[in-house]
């Protein structure tokens, strides 16, 4: 009823009406089930509803809702009536049906009664039949029992002879089976004399049998399976298992030890004849195969022994296994020096593969783990070996370069250029690295049995190959290169400057491209899955860059020193007080310019030009202008006038205020101009300091003037900022003027003429 009422369209209407009222009252749409004013809600309270209506609605709406409500109530009433009628009809038809059912049941009851009487009769008959057959059945059962017993007795009586026969024929298995069957019975009836006799006979025969079996077992020539059979029979005869398994293992040991000593003989003191692959093969089939058989037979035979037996076997396997491993390691150690990785990897693969079978059988002995460990160790050692050979290759390259640099140049024929040498070194190292990677990669090949071990998947790739081999090599390369910077022979003789330059370029190339290339190559070949931290490319690059910078700085120092020494000697050894009026530029200055040009060419082979400060279009004129009269006046003319000695300092100080401080041995950048600037700075600063330590005569000063002008003419083109050369040379001349009791500078035009004459 309720459901129908709810589903009634009129109720829907009522609901809709109420909803509208709700909206009109500003209430949220969507009925609240607990709302007492919800007409269709379970908690509808008419009083509250009415109250609400009365309070909230105006009269007209109240009237409307009243008529509406009346109409709806009427409709509901008529609906209810229809429903009552329909239900009444259904009730009447149900009453009819029940009446009919009552009749049918009465009929069924009669038939059931009849069935019960029939069943009783059948039971009666059946009981009578079984009573008649009972007697005969019992007799048959007894006869059958007697028959069986007789057969057993017959077997027992015949047992001794049968056993003898079996033993004679060698059918030990049969004999043991017979004995096993009879033993319990004989045991039970041994108080009867006849059975006792049989039992005694049997025991004698059995003893003989056991003895024979043992004999056969001890002879032991017939191999593991037959031995195993013997042991099985002996066990069945009730021999003590403990003793048997000891004996079994002792036998097995004898055989396996033979294998081991055969292997050891192969190892020998002399260089091994068979290669490592053959060796591991032989070891695998001989020793490991034997061990497998023994283990399998043992586990089958002595399974009943429980954990103690298993432990005994494990200890046995462990002991022999460790001796085998020692042999294998000795053999592998002989391989370490070799260069052929593929053979070694194949041998290791065989070795590892063979040991998986006993490993599975004898998990407790830890053979597989030990084997994996050996393989890992060998792999590590190989990595170390490769690193060493890479380092050796690098050093070899360097020696080659040294030789090429030191080789006397045949006149007219240039030796290999620096760029060519650099390319040679780079390609040779790269090919060495690639070869090493390729041969190490064999360890992780899919078909190799140990490649899926966690070590080879993770640590070997990341820590071993990437970090240990590649990163280690790059680091050691940088170190080797850096060691040239602080070699004890600081006088610069030890390392040819060209080598420094070449190494610096090499390191720079590594920084820009090669390192990331090599590491990408490595990461691709060895899909590094390990999460352990690895050295990022940027760190390595920074190291390489630092190395390159140090090498280049050292190069600058060495070359600067060479030129400085020349200048210093020339200043220190000359008697400046009594020198003659300058006619020429001194030879040493020409030499300086020549050497600088040579260095410029050398650096130019490997390094780019670099940027200079923008030059005025008219450089040569500007260089001259430094010595033009106006500048000269301002610069050191006042120092001749005795009235104002302070002015010199003041002027030079003021001038210095406006020029930047010159860092003489400052780090250089990777370009030719910067390198040359560094060298020239060092040289000119040396010249300055040397000049300050001497005293000059008038012509000495003029000679310095000429020399400086000459340097000015030729050096500006090498440096980044020609102002620097001006400043330093200015200072040299100014210092020389200060160190001269009689400073009369040469006419600039004369200076120029002398310099142009060369």
């Amino acid at each position, binding site marked *: 009823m309720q459901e129908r009422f709810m589903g009634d369209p009129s109720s829907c209407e009522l609901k809709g009406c109420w909803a509208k009222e709700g909206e009109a009252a500003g209430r949220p749409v969507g009925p609240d089930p607990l709302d007492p004013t919800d007409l269709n809600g379970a908690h509808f309270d008419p009083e509250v509803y009415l109250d609400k209506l009365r309070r909230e609605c105006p009269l007209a709406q109240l009237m409307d809702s009243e008529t509406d409500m009346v109409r709806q109530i009427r409709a509901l009433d008529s609906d209810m009536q229809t429903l009552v009628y329909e239900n009444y009809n259904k009730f009447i038809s149900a009453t009819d049906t029940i009446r009919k059912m009552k009749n049918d049941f009465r009929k069924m009851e009669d038939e059931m009664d009849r069935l019960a009487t029939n069943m009783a009769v059948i039971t009666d008959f059946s009981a009578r039949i079984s009573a008649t057959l009972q007697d005969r059945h019992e007799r048959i059962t007894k006869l059958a029992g007697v028959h069986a017993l007789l057969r057993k007795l017959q077997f027992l009586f015949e047992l001794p002879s049968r056993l003898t026969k079996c033993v004679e024929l060698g059918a030990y298995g049969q004999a043991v089976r017979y004995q096993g069957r009879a033993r319990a019975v004989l045991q039970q009836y041994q108080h009867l004399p006849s059975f006792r006799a049989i039992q005694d006979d049997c025991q004698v025969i059995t003893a003989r049998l056991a003895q024979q079996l043992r004999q056969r077992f001890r002879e032991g020539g017939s191999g593991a399976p037959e031995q195993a059979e013997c042991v099985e029979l002996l066990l069945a005869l009730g021999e003590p298992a403990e003793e048997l398994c000891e004996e079994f293992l002792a036998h097995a040991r004898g055989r396996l030890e033979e294998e081991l000593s055969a292997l050891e003989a192969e190892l020998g003191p002399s260089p091994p004849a068979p290669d490592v692959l053959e060796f591991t093969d032989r070891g695998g089939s001989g020793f490991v195969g034997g061990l497998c058989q023994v283990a399998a037979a043992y586990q089958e035979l002595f399974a009943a022994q429980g954990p103690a037996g298993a432990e005994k076997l494990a200890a046995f396997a462990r002991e022999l296994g460790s001796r085998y491993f020692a042999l294998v390691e000795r053999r592998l150690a002989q391989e370490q020096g070799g260069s052929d990785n593929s053979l070694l990897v194949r041998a290791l693969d065989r070795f590892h593969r063979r040991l998986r079978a006993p490993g599975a059988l004898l998990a407790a002995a830890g053979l597989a783990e030990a084997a994996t460990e050996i393989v890992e160790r060998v792999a590590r050692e190989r990595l170390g070996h490769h690193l060493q050979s890479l380092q050796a290759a690098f050093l070899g390259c360097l020696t080659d370069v040294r030789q090429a640099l030191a080789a006397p140049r045949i006149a007219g024929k240039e030796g290999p250029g620096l760029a060519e040498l650099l390319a040679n070194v780079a390609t040779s190292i790269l090919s060495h690295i690639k070869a090493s990677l390729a041969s190490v990669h064999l360890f992780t090949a899919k078909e190799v049995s140990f490649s899926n071990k966690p070590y080879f998947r993770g640590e070997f790739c990341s820590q071993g190959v990437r970090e240990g081999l590649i990163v280690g090599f790059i680091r050691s390369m940088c170190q080797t290169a850096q060691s040239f910077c602080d070699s004890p022979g*600081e*006088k610069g003789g030890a390392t040819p400057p060209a080598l420094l330059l070449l190494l610096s370029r090499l390191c720079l190339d590594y920084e820009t491209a090669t390192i990331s290339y090599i590491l990408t190559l490595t990461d691709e070949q060895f899909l590094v899955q390990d999460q352990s931290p690895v050295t990022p490319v940027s760190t390595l690059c920074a190291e390489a860059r630092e190395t390159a910078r140090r090498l280049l700085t050292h190069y600058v120092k060495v070359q600067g*020193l060479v030129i400085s020494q020349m200048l210093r000697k020339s200043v220190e050894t000359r008697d400046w*007080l*009594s020198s003659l009026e300058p006619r020429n530029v001194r030879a040493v200055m020409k030499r300086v310019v020549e050497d600088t040009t040579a260095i410029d060419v050398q650096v130019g082979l490997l390094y780019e030009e670099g940027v200079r400060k923008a030059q005025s279009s008219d450089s040569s004129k500007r260089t001259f202008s430094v010595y033009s009269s106006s500048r000269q006046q301002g610069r050191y003319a006042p120092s001749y006038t*005795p009235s104002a*000695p*302070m002015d010199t*300092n003041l002027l*030079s*100080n003021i001038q*210095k*205020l406006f020029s930047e*401080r010159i*860092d*003489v*041995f*400052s780090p250089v950048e990777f370009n030719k101009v910067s390198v040359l600037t560094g060298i020239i700075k060092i040289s000119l*600063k040396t010249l300055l*300091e040397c000049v*300050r330590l001497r*005293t000059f*005569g008038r012509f000495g000063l003029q000679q310095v003037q000429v020399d400086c002008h000459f340097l000015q003419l030729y050096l500006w083109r090498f440096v980044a900022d020609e102002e620097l050369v001006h400043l330093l040379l200015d200072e040299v001349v100014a210092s020389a003027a*200060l*160190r*001269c*009791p009689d400073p009369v500078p040469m006419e600039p035009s004369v200076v120029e003429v002398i310099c142009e004459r060369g």
Partner: protein
Amino acid sequence: MEDDAPVIYGLEFQARALTPQTAETDAIRFLVGTQSLKYDNQIHIIDFDDENNIINKNVLLHRAGEIWHISASPADKGVLATCYNKTADSKVLTCAAVWRMPAELEPGGHESPEDAASPAHALELLCHLDHPARGSTACVAWEPAGDGKRVISLADNHLLLWDLQESSSQALLASSASLEGKGQLKFTTGRWSPHHSCTQVATANDTAVRGWDTRTMSQIYCIENAHGQLVRDLDFNPNKQYCLASCGDDCRVKFWDTRKVTEPVRTLEEHSHWVWNVRYNHSHDQLVLTASSDSRVILSNMASISSEPFGHLVDDDDLSDQEERRPEEKSQEPPQDSVIATYEEHEDSVYAVEWAAADPWLFASLSYDGRLVVNRVPRALKYRILL
């Protein structure tokens, strides 16, 4: 006292020679010798007034020639020795002489600087330190802690030991040693060790450093190739035996143990040009000053090789006003060698730097353009060392 700013004093002439007045223990006083070829050279006596941060100067004339090296007697405030250039007949000779300052100047600067300039007093010559062979004298060193009677001078390849007699008015050549070898060997500098009752002297020639025993005048050790290039200066650690510092044209400062001369104990490479001067602080020998022609003076803390054990106070009678602060903050981390400060007040090459004799926290540096800068050890460091 509140201000750590450097005090700068300008000389009219170029100058290379600087020494503290070693015998003076109350006033902070430096002597500077000038280099001028055209005018009379001067010795400036620079008094630094620590309270007021003021410099007082007195000028003495040194008419003999331009001064290349100067050293003050450790016993007599008024006595000093100079090496000077004498130009005669287009020849330059470097001589050495012992001088006495005029008596009225000794107590130090009552006169105002303006007055001092006009009636300059001259030095009184006591004696010449000249060798018959007439080599150029590079350096004169007084016996430290002595009575001011013994002096060594280095002339070309000769090491000469003088006895000054009759209040220094006469110099007697006590003994000498010569450096023999191929080529023109020339001593560049020398230093008298304050240890072993002042029987050891170290000298430098070219790249080698040699030690001499003054009793026998024989060589006791030799550091061949101490530096890659010329050795410019030496100094002994005043508080720790066998410790020697050297510097040179390879821009490095090296610290040696003279018992094991194959390897330097430490090497500093902070300067970017030749290092001309290296000086240990007299009281706190972890403080090392270096001067270089890159126009910088660098103060380094070489705590790891100093005589001062970490956390222990060596010099406590110097600054008693800090006494009450000492118990706190003893637990510092072990000392690290480091550069404490780089002083960039100079515009030209700095050829000399010296600690004041009277105040262990004060030093002066002199650059070629005649600029003298008086600086102090940073206060934070001073307290860290003291407390």
